């Protein structure tokens, strides 16, 4: 049997739209997930017991169950609450919840790596609690874990393929449609795999550029804090 990629590539508009939706899902979930991660990492380190416990439970629950199951839980959970949301929104909620838990663990490791003396130095300079958190803890912590964090966000983009299971029309769903339409399953999935690899590289390049802009030290010295 001969390989025929042209049939698949002639569905370019559908592939492109799928890829864009995948990217959109990934970027929005990255933003929300990062915010969740910072908030829960702070909560987990905080002195309020029940908040720390709740954040801990959230992280363990997400990290020890498959994303596929989480999507269905969110999907059916929301609909049993009487909310019938579009698949895209459900996917976004599930992805954000998921990546938020991983980001929490990563941020927590970043916070833990800040020496106590740094925080004292900030306090002694008269910085407020919030200012200490921002300047002395958060920024260096993010700089330190930036590689882990961004790798996690790329994995999140790849995980968004699972949202095809609730009919989000992202890249994998587009592939499923194209292969059933063209009977070119092998070529379709090869093409889509290449798309995903390209999206991964694109995200990495984007994070690299962003890191250079946000962390001038890293750009100039290239060393780890």
């Amino acid at each position, binding site marked *: *049997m001969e390989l025929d990629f042209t049939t698949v590539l002639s569905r370019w508009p559908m592939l492109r739209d799928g890829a864009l939706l995948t990217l959109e899902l990934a970027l929005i979930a990255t933003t929300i997930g990062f915010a969740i991660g910072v908030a829960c990492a702070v909560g987990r380190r905080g002195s309020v017991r029940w908040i720390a416990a709740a954040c801990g439970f959230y992280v363990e629950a997400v990290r*020890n*169950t498959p994303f596929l199951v989480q999507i269905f839980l969110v999907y059916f959970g929301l609909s049993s609450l009487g909310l019938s949301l579009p698949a895209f929104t459900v996917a976004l909620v599930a992805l954000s919840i998921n990546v938020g838990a991983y980001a929490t663990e990563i941020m927590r*490791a970043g916070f833990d790596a800040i020496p106590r003396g740094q925080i004292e130095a900030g306090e002694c300079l008269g910085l407020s609690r919030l200012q200490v958190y921002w300047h002395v803890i958060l920024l260096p912590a993010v700089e330190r874990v930036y590689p*882990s964090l961004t790798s996690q966000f790329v994995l999140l983009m*790849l995980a968004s393929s*699972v949202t095809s299971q609730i009919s989000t029309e992202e890249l994998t769903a587009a592939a499923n449609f194209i292969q059933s339409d063209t009977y070119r399953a092998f070529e379709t999935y*090869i093409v889509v795999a290449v798309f995903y*690899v390209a999206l991964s590289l694109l995200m990495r390049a984007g994070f690299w550029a962003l890191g250079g802009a946000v962390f001038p030290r890293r750009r100039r010295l290239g060393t780890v804090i």
Partner: protein
Amino acid sequence: MMGGHLNAFHLAYLANGAMWTVVLSAMAFLGGGVAAFLVALCRISPLRIVRVASGAVVQLVQGTPLLVILFLAYFGLPAIGFSVPPLLAAGASLTIYVGAFLGEVWRGAILAVPAPQWEAAECLALSRTQRLFQVILPQAVRIATPPTVGFLVQIIKSTSLASAIGFVELARAGQIINNSLLEPFLIYVIIACVYFALCYPISRWSRRLERSTGFARSARVAVP
């Protein structure tokens, strides 16, 4: 199995699915472990071409969702004339996937063995293979154990995607039961709990190992 309520039969069906999840995970770990070992060796090969080529393959696999690899194996291969049953498709896909990720973890562990150890072994006039197997790997195994145990959790979770190609493991068993029960939320809560029961002890174990071996707990990335 057209019952209106969750009954013993459903639970037995779920238990059977859970068993297949474990079997598939074991297959993935064994197959993936062999693949990972080869990947790790290739990635530290003295031959540049081998290092670069294996690095490229790892990047390709790590840049592709497991779901797409599964579809490629299960739907793609038959389309070009190789028919594969779901178990084989799932096992092979997971092997490739685990090989790429675990291979990099193990490579990191090998490289984490302090450089003087390599030099010391070299001074003893051991051949490269002897150095690797008698001096470096035994130490690398200690370093690699906690993250490898942690990765078991990722493997168990990943097997849930085999449901998408119709392999009846835990997640698929749940879907099938739901077709007759129509209580999706309840069923997925139960399934989530079963996965949690499988994964959480291993997570704890991995963390305990991290602490007891004293290898610095780094912000590690995990496949969702």
